[in-house]
């Protein structure tokens, strides 16, 4: 079974400070990992993914994430947060491509960036 843990329900940072949203995963085999963001009253927007290759993945809106196999983590980071980054962030995992395309999502982390 695959699963994702986002240990922090909320993350609060000041604008201009670094932002980190934590994610750990459990899956058989090499994982496919994803980050999505959900703004109020909106659907999920894809930010970035790790499939293979460089452990540091760069995505939309200045976000990046680092895959750490030994720690089974895929933390989302942004060097300088903006007020507009305030949203709900979801980490998701799926097993390597098989007939099972199921994505498993974490519980979500609410990010609040104060001006």
């Amino acid at each position, binding site marked *: 079974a695959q699963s994702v843990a986002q240990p922090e329900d909320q993350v609060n940072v000041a604008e201009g400070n670094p932002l980190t949203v934590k994610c750990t995963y459990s899956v058989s085999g090499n994982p*496919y990992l*994803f980050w*999505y963001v959900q703004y109020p*009253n*909106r*659907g*999920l*927007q*894809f930010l970035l*993914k790790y*499939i293979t290759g460089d452990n540091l993945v760069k995505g939309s809106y200045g976000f990046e994430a680092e895959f750490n196999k030994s720690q089974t983590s895929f933390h989302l980071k942004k060097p300088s947060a903006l007020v507009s980054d305030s949203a709900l962030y*979801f980490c998701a995992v*799926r097993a390597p*491509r098989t007939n099972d*395309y*199921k*994505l498993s*999502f*974490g*519980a*979500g982390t609410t990010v609040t960036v104060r001006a």
Partner: protein
Amino acid sequence: SAVISQKPSRDICQRGTSLTIQCQVDSQVTMMFWYRQQPGQSLTLIATANQGSEATYESGFVIDKFPISRPNLTFSTLTVSNMSPEDSSIYLCSVEGQSSTDTQYFGPGTRLTVL
């Protein structure tokens, strides 16, 4: 990425009634998925819909309650039947294309309130 639209964007329904949610994609896709996001919760996969075959439902979801149609490669519907207040949720469709990008893209969601 695919452009996905959903209708309706929101609705308020009486218990015991049914609502059909439409999902339209601007390109042909093999895999379409339906998720439920209960208030304050993460996303839970309801079913996977492939064109030309019966939908595959996840544990806890049944066809009688959530019938799904997939008449072609750009369209799907999810019906929430015999609704109760517990069905109040955001329902999202997502797609994964044929190019093996392994990324699911989500529609804007349908916010359902059952009174």
